[in-house]
């Protein structure tokens, strides 16, 4: 299932017809999508579609729904944030998920990241440590599945200590760790396949830098674990928060 991306009107029309979503949020999603594509936060086609198909407004708290497609992260209670769309886009793009990949997420939070993953592969596992949040997010998924969002059946959830991973479901092709910790849990690295990628945002919300950990085979058959940033040894300028205005990207610095 792929929505048209040739124009905002076609996208909204298609989504209203096929997903019965609110045109107001669809318009905002489209605008954010344009900004993200221009910023280089959605690097491949499957991630672009996943973003367009995921109703972010369903994963934020009701009182913050009007800010669903703002650039910034939002509070979802319990001391947890839902990352900004640009950050989620970059993280998901970096993982470069293919159909059939097994993906584990540590720190379900709002459920938004896993929901995007659910559009990319049918094998997603996600763990949340905070029980009431895990229950709330499970409820969001169940509600959406009941409304016809069958792809969220691809997401298996549980409330547990993510430090130990999900051994019986592993090994995984990709792992996303979205909770703060002072080291990469060895159990997660053990459950990562050789050739797999793990990404971990480090730093305060809004200023996070994404750590990429890869597990590779050496020519002699031994295994090597390497750290890098998601830009492969390069640096990317910070772009002041942007939005689409009159077919151009406007940064707050231009005001």
């Amino acid at each position: 299932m792929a929505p048209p991306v040739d124009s905002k009107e076609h996208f909204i029309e298609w989504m209203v017809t096929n997903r019965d979503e609110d045109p107001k949020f669809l318009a905002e999603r489209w605008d954010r999508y344009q900004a993200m594509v221009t910023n280089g936060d959605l690097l491949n086609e499957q991630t672009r579609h996943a973003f367009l198909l995921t109703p972010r407004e369903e994963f934020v708290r009701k009182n913050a729904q009007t800010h669903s497609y703002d650039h910034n992260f939002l509070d979802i209670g319990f001391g947890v944030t839902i990352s900004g769309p640009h950050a989620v886009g970059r993280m998901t793009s970096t993982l470069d998920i293919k159909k059939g990949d097994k993906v584990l997420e540590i720190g379900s939070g709002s459920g938004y990241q896993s929901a995007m993953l659910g559009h990319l592969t049918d094998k997603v596992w996600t763990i949340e440590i905070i029980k009431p949040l895990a229950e709330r997010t499970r409820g969001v998924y169940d509600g959406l599945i009941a409304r016809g969002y069958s792809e969220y059946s691809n997401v298996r959830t549980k409330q547990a200590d993510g430090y130990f991973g999900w051994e019986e479901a592993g090994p995984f092709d990709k792992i996303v760790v979205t909770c703060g910790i002072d080291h990469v849990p060895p159990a997660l690295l053990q459950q990562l396949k050789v050739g797999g990628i793990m990404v971990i945002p480090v730093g305060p919300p809004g200023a996070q830098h994404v750590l990429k950990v890869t597990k590779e085979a050496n020519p002699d058959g031994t295994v090597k674990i390497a750290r890098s940033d998601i830009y492969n040894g390069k640096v990317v300028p910070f772009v002041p928060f942007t939005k689409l205005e009159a077919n151009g990207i406007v940064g707050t610095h231009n005001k």
Partner: protein
Amino acid sequence: VSSSPADDSNVSASPEWAQTGARQALMYAAVGSVAGAVIALQIGVMRIFSEGSWAHFGSLVVSLAMLGFGLTSAVMCLARPWFERHWFGVIAASLGAFAPLVIGANLMAQQLPFNAIFLVSDPLQKWRLVANFALYLLPFLAGSVFLGTVFLRAKTVFGRVYFADLLGSGLCGLLTLVALFFVPSENLVLVPVVLGGVGGVLWFAGLGRPLGAIVMVLLAVVSGAAHLTLPERLNATTLAVSDYKGVSYARKFPDAKREYDSVSPFGHIEVYSSSYLHFAPGLSDNASLNLAQMPANAYLGLYMDGDGPIGVMRELSDKDSAYFHYLPMVYPYLITTAPKTFVVQFGGGISTMVALHSKASSVTVGESSPALLQAFRESDVLKKFTGDILSRVSVIPYDGRLYLANTNERYDVVDLSLADSAGLSNPGGFAIVEKYSYTQEAMQHYMRSLTDKGVLSVTLWNKEEPPKSVLKLYATMAAAAQANGDVDISKNFFVASSYLSTVTVLYKRGGFSAADIATLRKHTSSMSFDEIYSPGIVVDQKKAEHVFGDFRSTIFSTTSTDAATSGGAALVAADGDASVVPATSLYQLAWQSLIRNDWNTFEQKYLFDVRPLTNKRPYFAAYVHPTDLPLITDRLELFQDEWGYLLLWATLSIACVSGVIVIGIPVVFGWRTAFSRYPGKAQTIIYFACLGFGYITVEVGLIAQFVQALSNATVSASVLITGMLVFSGIGSFVSERFASQARVTLPKVCASIGVLLIAYSLLLNPVLNAIGGLPYALRLVCCFILIAPPAFLMGFPMATGMGALTRLKKEEMFLWAWGVNGCFSVIGAALVPLVATAFGLAVVIGTAGAVYLIAIPAFFGLLKPMRGTSAA
């Protein structure tokens, strides 16, 4: 010839201040008690913010609330006749309102917690911060109206009232600090309620009005009872702890259990157990390839004022502790055998545990927090869990830095690992605090205390991108080695890091041997850590310009099209080698600069201020060059760890605006009317501005500097606040005797203060270092002796200046001067850390000295007689 202020002595005292004997004493005691209540409220609000969210927001709110004094004075200045006529009602109302306002404002503020991390992104949070400020301002306003009205009525005895004000503030500040041992933060508001209530009772007793005293008792009791009972009935919280504080997460773990809890001026310590707590700071990723599993239930989480966790490790079997080999703290033990080890800061005990499991022949630990040592010594849970770790080591019950600076003992390993930090990013930012354990002077002491082949190992978090604190550490350690006489430091260092994890710097006295280097390089490689520097390492320096340019553009990019055209990929490859991240390249280049003794060039090219830490500038903070500040206003989220620093600029801006208002209101409304007969207005403003600015600058500056000898910010603050206020109070009292010769004596006093402070700015550093080696009680005595001379003299100018205004009948200016003084106090308090981080603490104290010198000519302007009055 103008008249001497003392010559106009025909101003009669108000009846209530003309009383004698016990009643007069009660009046002065009332002033002292209410002034003390205001100080207690300041400390209470600071503690509430420290525990509920973050201390620097408390500083902001208190600073702004103190501006209320200035604004009150401006209003009172204009409506002086009304306040003089209705003084009894105004004072009764302000005294009566104080306790209910303290309780009511605090309770409401706690129902409106603001969340620091959303300050930039959520407009609602800014309004919540404003609401907190407005609410906490109310009791301060009541206090300032009381004191302002008292000053207005007591003009003729201002020196004595001011003495009571300062003495009361100092003693009640001390009393509040004692209360911190017994009263948890959520109930600290009861301290100002009690002090305010006592002040009210004393006031009405002094006036001979028992009914008023009874009402004051009732109001205080009802307010206190409301604080203790209302929240439960209303299902309201008395201290809202942010969901984003470390302890809030621990409390949510299903099996979390609080194992230890204590309050003291050193902070609120809580220890939680939970199977969800995991610590292995800096653990090599390769542990996953070689270890079957990490030990379960091996940790307790220790929280200070809700921040943390600091990991407390269970005593583990050799099998379970195998993972220690994968921690960065193990580095010095790879090239030493059965070393005699000194751990500079015990903290949660991780370095100590690693030392014990690395077969150190003896381990000595330093720890400056008595509360932390008490926890490990007295808690059965902690003793059992850690195998009573403190009984297996020698404990230095104060700062390890000071011990090493003043001992002849020598050690094979000196370790300073991840001190003062839980390691994870603090979303609310960090307050600007002195880190004397990491200064060049401290590093010199550590290096000197090594045996001939001894190793100093310093591990720091490496989680900033672009890097900041790590570069400061590098520069500091290299500078220390050079200052110790190592001409060529290229053989003395080995540095390894793990990207977005930790960095470890090893210094070996006498230099590393080839065998040492081989061992360290092999270990670094086997851990998949990055080798940053080792003797003989080859680094391609051609990439330097690219690296500097790219890092600058990560923050200061001015066009979005740069990134847009890159399609989300990089603009410029840092070095063409995808396996080396830019931060690692930067570190390698940094060490090449340090070895070449060319750090100046490096720091000029780098986007942040990365000068070494010294005892004069002991800060891991203020990385943004002040000239770059205008460029970051639209990207504040990137500087969340600097919000403590940026808030100071915000406070300063607001204080300056308020200062203009306080000075401006009377000027606009009274310049050509009420003040028209007053010559020397500008000099009068300058005089009282100098006093406000100078006094607070000395107080705040010395608090920061005395931490060097006293090892603890809380103790330093209590010594300074009490010492300064009490000695100044005495000075104010004594100044009365010299009022008749003020024209001659005050310039001498101000000149003496100036000279004394400038001398302190030059000499204090080595003096405090020497004091730091004395027994603690003696250190306190020495610090009080150091404070006494300037503080005593600094009590003179305010009392003398206000007395002169009274005697010259410049009554409109009386309260205005007090307000100007208050406003510039807030400006000074905000400026101190800004000046200290940029230029050093010596400049702060020296500036204060210069300001007192500037006050001398201004004083002569103040002494100009009113127009229309005849000169003597």
